[in-house]
């Protein structure tokens, strides 16, 4: 491996709780890498190990090829942005930003220049004389970024930096963060429990669950090709099907028999599974099309007949929950690209056909039925973009 920042077999326990279990990650220079997972999954612990606030029980941290596992936090070329910003209340914004440089005994003239450049980067030139309690949350956030970046760290660690901001501000700061990253090109390691933040910002994401890395990949890879039921259910919404391969149609596709579901389903056999092998599948809600009439038969498409049990209209799209064969409640979303008042939308209790292409489902490597609890079910009625876990760690 030749990553810029490497974690090798990191384990860490707090008492009986195993926060991290043999985690290995390789982060490239200059990328935005997110650690994504629910509260208590170990992502913050990994960040704190990287910053030097925690010592791993086992494993090594390498920065630019150098082992920094045992270095104290004040001797690492990494800087952290804390969830609550941790600005020093007794100093002005300018003094806050200059703090690191003063300690590094940088010449006064250079400190002044670099602080000024940073103030411009985060657009706070006119507030530099104020103290942290006199500015807004978004401004505090920007001071924290400036205070860290002014030291020109090799890696910038961000611990849920937007969790304390409201939704609109969060979205704006996300764009700003992205802009700042483009400007400075520093490697960012970004901890969050919010999938939309991670997907919007990151080059790559590591999905954490119970102290292990479930999957590493780009936003698209993780969303479209989740390896485990946890990733599939935690990132966005999905439908699970459990069955067994009953027939290989050709080298690419296979027929799958799902318990309690009438027709056999066709899926792309990307795992090249043999007949009679158990298989767990995930199909995202937006992959379905929903209609009152039976769609034209297509050998590579699956069609199911059901009844709409619940509808939520969300403006840009609508969510349906369709009951199929008593046992299955399938969630379906569809985007409204046309003016909706002109059409007659499908309503509650209507009989519908849902169909999807054989390529649009994905075979999971690992399935745990507990992960179904993460799905946005009909009763909850939550829209897509509210993360299942709103509380901060």
């Amino acid at each position, binding site marked *: 491996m030749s990553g810029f920042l490497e974690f090798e077999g990191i384990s860490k326990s707090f008492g009986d709780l195993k926060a991290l279990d043999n985690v290995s990650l390789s982060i490239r220079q200059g990328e935005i890498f997110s650690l994504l997972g629910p509260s208590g999954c170990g992502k913050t612990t990994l960040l704190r190990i990287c910053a*030097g606030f925690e010592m791993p029980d086992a494993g090594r941290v390498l920065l630019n090829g150098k082992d920094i596992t045992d270095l104290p936090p004040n001797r690492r070329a990494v800087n952290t942005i804390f969830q609550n910003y941790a600005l020093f209340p007794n100093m002005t914004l300018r003094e806050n930003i200059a703090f690191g440089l003063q*300690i590094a005994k940088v010449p006064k003239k250079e400190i002044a220049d670099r602080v000024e450049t940073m103030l411009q980067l985060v657009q706070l030139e006119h507030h530099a004389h104020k103290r942290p309690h006199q500015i807004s949350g978004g401004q505090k956030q920007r001071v924290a970024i400036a205070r*860290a970046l002014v030291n020109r760290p090799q890696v910038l660690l961000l611990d849920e930096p937007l969790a304390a901001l409201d939704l609109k501000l969060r979205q704006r700061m996300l764009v700003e963060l992205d802009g700042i990253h483009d400007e400075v090109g520093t490697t960012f390691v970004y901890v969050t429990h919010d999938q939309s933040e991670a997907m919007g910002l990151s080059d790559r994401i590591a999905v954490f669950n119970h102290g292990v890395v479930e999957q590493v990949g780009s936003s698209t890879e993780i969303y479209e090709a989740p390896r485990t039921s946890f990733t599939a259910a935690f990132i966005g919404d999905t439908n699970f099907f459990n069955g067994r391969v009953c027939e290989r149609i050709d080298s690419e596709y296979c027929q799958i028999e799902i318990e309690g579901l009438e027709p056999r389903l066709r899926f792309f056999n990307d795992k090249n599974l043999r007949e009679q092998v158990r298989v767990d599948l995930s199909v995202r809600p937006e992959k379905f099309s929903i209609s009152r009439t039976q769609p034209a038969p297509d050998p590579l498409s699956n069609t199911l007949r059901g009844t709409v049990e619940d509808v939520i209209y969300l403006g840009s799209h609508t969510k349906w929950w369709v009951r199929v064969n008593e046992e299955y409640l399938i969630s379906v979303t569809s985007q409204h690209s046309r003016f909706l008042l002109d059409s007659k939308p499908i309503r509650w209790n209507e009989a519908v056909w849902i169909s999807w292409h054989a390529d649009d489902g994905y075979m999971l490597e690992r399935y745990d039925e507990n992960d179904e609890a993460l799905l946005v079910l009909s009763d909850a009625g939550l829209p897509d973009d509210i993360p299942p876990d709103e509380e901060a760690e």
Partner: protein
Amino acid sequence: MKRSRLPGLTVLILLVFFYLPIVILVINSFNLHKYGGEWSGFTLKWYVRLFQDDAVWHALRNSLIIAGVSTAASTVLGTLAAYALHRSNDRFQKIHHGLIYMPLVLPDILMGMSLLLFFVAVGFQLGLTSICIAHITFCISYVAMVVLARLQDFDFSMMEAAYDLGANSWTATTRVLLPALAPGITAGALLAFTLSIDDFVITFFVAGPGSSTLPVHIYSMMKHSRFMPVINALSTLLLLVTFVAVGSSQLINKQKGADLP
């Protein structure tokens, strides 16, 4: 709607109850009459007599020395104790907390008695030193409790931020922790000073010959009624000093408060 007069009346009664005795004391300090029962003319002679009384000044000097020493010592020790109490989760810390808290609830007379017995038992000479030790003992508790309250509001991720930005423990403590705790430490020190200069019961037990503090000296003066007007004059002066001290501290706070939340 007609507003009730009750709140105003209550405040008036309260003010009279609190301050009438003090007003009478101040008036009597200028009263020519020896026993202060009736007004028999204005005089400053009690003040003159007060300034000629060397014993009073000696006692005041003792009081200030003791208050200064015990404030300094208890502020340092109390702050350290509060930090230890806050940062360590050891089970001994529960006992530690109990021990620190004890002097706050223990009756003074018990503290005084036990300290006296202790000093006698170990053969310690009673005097300024013994009073200082006694005062430090109970002042530590007050300082520790005040600083602890401040510490509980302190966000320790600020310390982590300081380390993260390259600070060592010393820099992080002096530039981040101490400035944040400063109001608590100052309040603790002021409290310690007030308690020390004001203390009678404990001092009375552990004071030796020639080491009387002002409160103890005033008490001994009270036994002789001829000193009564002098005590009034002394009390009036103390009142003045207190007003000036409180007033200026509030003024300082106000100026500082301009850029604090």
